[in-house]
């Protein structure tokens, strides 16, 4: 499906910041799943391109004059493969790297117990086991904004039984890793229905022996097809998030 | 040099000067209070608070401006950013960050001064006596200046140190003069009052003898103001401070045209071409407030011109 994207992010400060720097991950790459027809990033200063440690296309935005806000806009069109059976790009790292738990994706306590329920299934029938895991996570954890925030770890969100797509993705990834299934966090866009509508979105990819990386949109209980534009991957949100920044001066940030 | 190092040096200079000026003001208030013929002792201590501000935070901790309350507040109180304790601590902390830029002797002076403050309490201060304590602070400040002048390379580090010293001195002197002049103009000023009060101001800046050397006449308010504002021989005058600030800035600028230089030049010019009669006519307070503001703006501009933290 052809997805049109206009994504604007604005940060505002109560008092001017004197220096700010952002890592932007806002540029989708061509892959087996998607073809980038056009893409443009607008920012208040020249962007410097770099490729991060996970193979993501990234940019650095530096503002070194006093500023009270930062406005970045990403615009473009992407053709997304319709079927859900796409195998994702392997990327620069062997899958085993993605077995590593991070603070946001530890599966201890009740979350660990939950994951362990799928242990047997994962050994015998990993494909179905992961589908069940996805459904199981979504059943356990409601979609509810305002309960968690960007730094909430998987165990916390699971304990709260509520979160947003970022949390669903973290929880799923945490469970996979505990089950010795390599899993990575994905950040991107979810195109709306035919009438438009677009949102920043987070989902996950898990690696199956003999197959490769397959996507799972836990928040929406489906395997991505046609509407998901993949932008960045990593061990968790911190590696793949659209904007991660620092500023000097400038109190009270709001987005 | 690193901007942070310059900043540390600048603040080391400012803090030591601040400590010295505070000791001077307290010492003088103490002396005039002793000499006051009967009554209203608290007026002197009140005027210290007027000069330095901090009424609100003072009254949060103390009931009335008695001698012991004011001295405790301005000498020992670690929560009062203007206290001698805080200034000495500030000087030492800034210096600790720049061990490489200052000589071992300079560090030793600041460190030992700090130990002296750290180990002092109200009882100890009482035993020592305010006069002796203030002399000690002044001595340590002199020693620091002397050791700096004698052991540091007279390079950028030295210039930043001096910038701090003279900006602080200008600010403190202007405030002292502003408050005292205002108080004394509004009071009944007979010749005895004039002699004691203005004499006290002169002693606060160690200019009692200098006055007589220069003017060979009785103490008059106009002349005191002149001495402290525009006489370039007087090392604590605003003119002297402004000249020093410009000189050090010029050496630091290395040919660049800095906004701070322009501001310093403006301040300099105002003091160089001033006439006391015109200033007093237009209002000394107005003039001094402009100087104090000018110093503050200049301080901020230094941050920008030398990439210090804003």
């Amino acid at each position, binding site marked *: 499906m052809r997805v049109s994207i206009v994504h604007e992010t604005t940060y505002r400060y109560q008092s001017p910041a004197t220096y700010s*720097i952002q*890592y932007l991950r806002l540029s989708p790459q061509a892959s087996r799943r998607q073809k980038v027809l056009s893409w443009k990033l607008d920012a208040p200063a020249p962007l*410097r391109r770099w490729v991060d440690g996970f193979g993501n296309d990234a940019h*650095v935005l530096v503002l070194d004059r006093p500023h009270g806000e930062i406005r970045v806009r990403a615009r473009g069109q992407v053709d997304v493969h319709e079927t859900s059976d796409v195998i994702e790009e392997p990327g620069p790292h062997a899958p*085993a790297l993605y077995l590593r738990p991070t603070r946001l994706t530890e599966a201890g306590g009740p979350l660990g117990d939950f994951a362990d329920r799928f242990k047997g299934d994962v050994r015998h029938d990993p494909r179905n086991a992961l589908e069940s895991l996805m459904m199981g996570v979504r059943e356990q954890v409601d979609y509810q904004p305002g309960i968690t925030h960007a730094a909430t770890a998987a165990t916390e969100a699971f304990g709260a039984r509520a979160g947003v797509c970022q949390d669903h993705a973290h929880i799923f990834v945490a469970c996979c890793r505990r089950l010795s299934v390599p899993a990575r966090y994905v950040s991107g866009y979810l195109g709306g229905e035919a009438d438009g509508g677009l949102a920043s979105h987070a989902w996950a990819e898990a690696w199956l022996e003999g197959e490769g990386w397959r996507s799972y949109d836990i928040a929406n209980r489906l395997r991505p097809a046609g509407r998901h534009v993949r932008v960045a991957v990593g061990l968790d949100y911190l590696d793949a998030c659209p904007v*991660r920044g620092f500023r000097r001066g400038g109190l009270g940030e709001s987005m | 040099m690193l901007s942070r190092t310059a900043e540390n040096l600048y603040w080391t200079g400012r803090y030591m000067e601040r400590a010295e000026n505070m000791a001077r003001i307290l010492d003088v208030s103490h002396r005039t209070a002793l000499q006051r013929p009967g009554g209203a002792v608290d007026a002197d201590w009140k005027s210290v608070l007027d000069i330095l501000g901090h009424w609100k935070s003072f009254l949060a901790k103390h009931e009335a401006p008695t001698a012991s309350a004011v001295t405790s507040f301005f000498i020992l109180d670690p929560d009062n950013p203007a206290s001698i304790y805080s200034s000495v601590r500030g000087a030492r902390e800034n210096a600790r960050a720049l*061990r*490489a830029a200052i000589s071992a002797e300079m560090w030793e002076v600041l460190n030992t001064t700090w130990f002296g403050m750290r180990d002092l309490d109200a009882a100890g201060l009482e035993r020592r006596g305010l006069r002796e304590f203030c002399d000690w602070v002044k001595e340590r400040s002199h020693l620091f200046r002397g050791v700096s002048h004698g052991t540091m390379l007279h390079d950028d580090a030295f210039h930043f140190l001096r910038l701090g010293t003279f900006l602080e001195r200008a600010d403190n002197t202007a405030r002292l003069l502003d408050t005292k002049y205002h108080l004394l103009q509004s009071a009944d000023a007979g010749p005895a009052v004039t002699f004691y009060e203005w004499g006290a101001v002169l002693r606060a800046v160690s200019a009692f003898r200098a006055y007589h050397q220069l003017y060979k006449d009785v103490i008059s308010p106009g002349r005191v103001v002149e001495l402290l504002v525009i006489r370039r021989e007087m090392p604590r005058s605003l003119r002297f401070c402004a000249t020093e600030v410009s000189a050090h800035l010029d050496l*630091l600028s290395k040919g660049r045209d800095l906004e701070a230089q322009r501001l310093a030049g403006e301040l300099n010019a105002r003091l160089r071409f001033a006439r006391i009669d015109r200033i007093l006519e237009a209002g000394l307070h107005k003039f001094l407030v402009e100087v104090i503001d000018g110093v503050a703006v200049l301080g901020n501009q230094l941050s920008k011109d030398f990439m210090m933290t804003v």
Partner: protein
Amino acid sequence: MADTFDEMHGTAGAVRSPFAAVKRWLAETPHDAFAHKRQEADLMFQRIGITFNVYGQSAGAERLIPFDIIPRVLNAAEWKRLSVGLTQRVKALNLFLKDVYHDQEILKAGVIPAEQILRNDMYRPEMRGVDVAGDVYVHVAGIDLVRVDEDRFYVLEDNLRTPSGVSYMLENRAVMMRLFPRLFSGASVAPVDHYPQELLRCLRSVAPPRATAEPVVAVLTPGPLNSAYFEHTFLAEQMGVELVEGQDLFVQDDLLWMRTTDGPRRVDVIYRRIDDDSLDPLAFKPESLLGVPGLLSVYRNGGVTLANAIGNGVADDKSIYPYVPDLIKFYLGESPLIENVPTYRCADEKDRMYVLEHLGELVIKETQGSGGYGMLIGPRSTREEREKFRGLIQKDPEGYIAQPTLALSTCPSFVDEGIAPRHIDLRPFVLSGRDGIAIVPGGLTRVALTKDSLVVNSSQGGGTKDTWVLRE
């Protein structure tokens, strides 16, 4: 335990030739003079300010590391053997790091299981594909050596991230020369004070391609509260370069800059003494205030060189240590000239069985931790402690390795009872630049001042000695 080898007397009792001058000096000097000189030494160290903050104690709790005035002496031949062996080892480790962050041939060849590397937290995905200047990853290596007899040294541990202690090596020599000038004129001791010059040469040699003709080097320190702060200031001063903290640096235009009073100044090479996690809050630990936001992007784009490189921890981790002889063979086609301490990997079933049966004789070490705390010293342990470790090993076999207790060599040292032998080790500092490897003769000798103690860590009661390498 085998007979302990004493560096002065060997096992036979006669004075070994390297120690001849020292022996004479000890015999000829009256006891009081030594006591006096020892006090002088302490005062000198205090004045220099070479103190350190002990972790866990309140800020401002600064301590001197005890210095013992009897030097440890190696002759030229002994040092030459060590030097060649150290060069070989560091060369192989640099090749390993390059390989593991590029084509991973050693994993493809099955020499090390891939998962051992990829699941190791010290392996940094951010280094994948990064080309570093001169292919040098370990610019400064501290290789800890122990000696068990006349001819046998072992590598105890590799330190390839932010090894410290070289300032002690230099100050120890300076103090010894001030206190005992005649001792030095009687012996022919190779100098060490050119270390800062060699370090600077090495750092400048790895300037990135975009650097100007005169590359700018700076030392990045976490600040005065760090236990090794003295060393950071010392080295910056000796090299004549700026000592910076994270807040002094900023990223712009794909380059790294310093905030100076003359405006922004480019920095080409950073000798960083902060750990990987603290380097860039936009890439690693978000709450770290010690690093520079944006630094990783400049590094990956080749705009700045970091010494030591990011991600070296994968090569000095205790779980990789047993493989180092295999690395030397794989990359250089040679046998290691200095061997590892014989090591049992608890992850290996056969090794594990042996270890569990011989807990009382072995030293058990954790594979990811800092020295001296999470260890079991078999012969000194209680039954409870051994049982505790049995449980730990069985629960997480990959987390432990074991080594036989070594009878470390001893060296005469001043103690309460007079002069007595105490166990020592040696940390030479190996510098790698674009033009090759340089090692300043000797290194830091650490001594366990408590009788029979094998723990030389300064944070646990160890001290240091001057290390002499004789010119013949």
